[in-house]
């Protein structure tokens, strides 16, 4: 381990909070998805750091599974973005405030 684990956790925590703020504050669907990406990467940094700290390989394996999960999530959510854009002509999240029962 090249640095103390706390420093790595601080970096990952700041990055996670920035992604969370982006997800909560922005109204553009693309920016919301980018915030989710940032959060997932912060989690990956934590996992790799734990893998290096405990000298076990499991953390890195979970990161690889996380990457596959992310690609699945991104593909289906971008398909949703295309669908919503086609339906209402906008991707501002505030425009989707009604239900059609």
């Amino acid at each position: 381990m090249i640095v103390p684990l706390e420093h790595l956790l601080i970096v990952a925590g700041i990055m996670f909070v920035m992604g969370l703020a982006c997800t909560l504050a922005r109204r553009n669907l693309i920016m919301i998805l980018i915030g989710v990406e940032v959060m997932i990467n912060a989690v990956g940094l934590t996992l790799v750091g734990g893998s290096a700290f405990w000298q076990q390989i499991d953390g890195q394996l979970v990161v690889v599974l996380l990457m596959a999960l992310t690609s699945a999530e991104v593909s289906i959510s971008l398909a949703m973005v295309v669908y919503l854009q086609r339906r209402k002509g906008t991707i501002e999240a505030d425009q989707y405030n009604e239900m059609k029962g």
Partner: protein
Amino acid sequence: MAPVLFYILSAVALIATLLCITRRNPVHAVVYLVHAFFALALIFYLLGAPLVAAWEVIIYAGAIMVLFLFIIMMLELAPNEAESKGTGWQRWLPVVLLALALITCTLLIMGVEAVGREGVPAYYASPRDFGYALFKEYALAVEVVSFQLLFAAVGAFYVGKKEWRNGGRK
């Protein structure tokens, strides 16, 4: 040397992420996020995960961000460039600085061997160990993830299909 590089790369990643989440133009946000992913990949390499670092660049920066850019350009979501203020070099300055920092760190990493703080070799996961662990202990997880990718492909196809009901689009 490696701890210094770690702190520099962490700063680059955090600055790039901060710039990313404050951009109004989604294309600029994606470009800054690619910088953050490159910095994270170098951090992964420093932490003894070279395979994960390579996949971070290939999958995240290569595939997923290009998918984002593709959707942004397909739906024409980027605002018009005409009203942006500032001269040319002012807008290019953050990108150029971050890229220069990343290139410098990459060159330094190439010249530095991965040695820990007390002089003992740092933990290093070779691709061989990685493959053994992934396909022996985590074989079930690999199966589950492959199913998940299949479901995502089917779902994306279903959502993106134009004419599904009423035999045509209204």
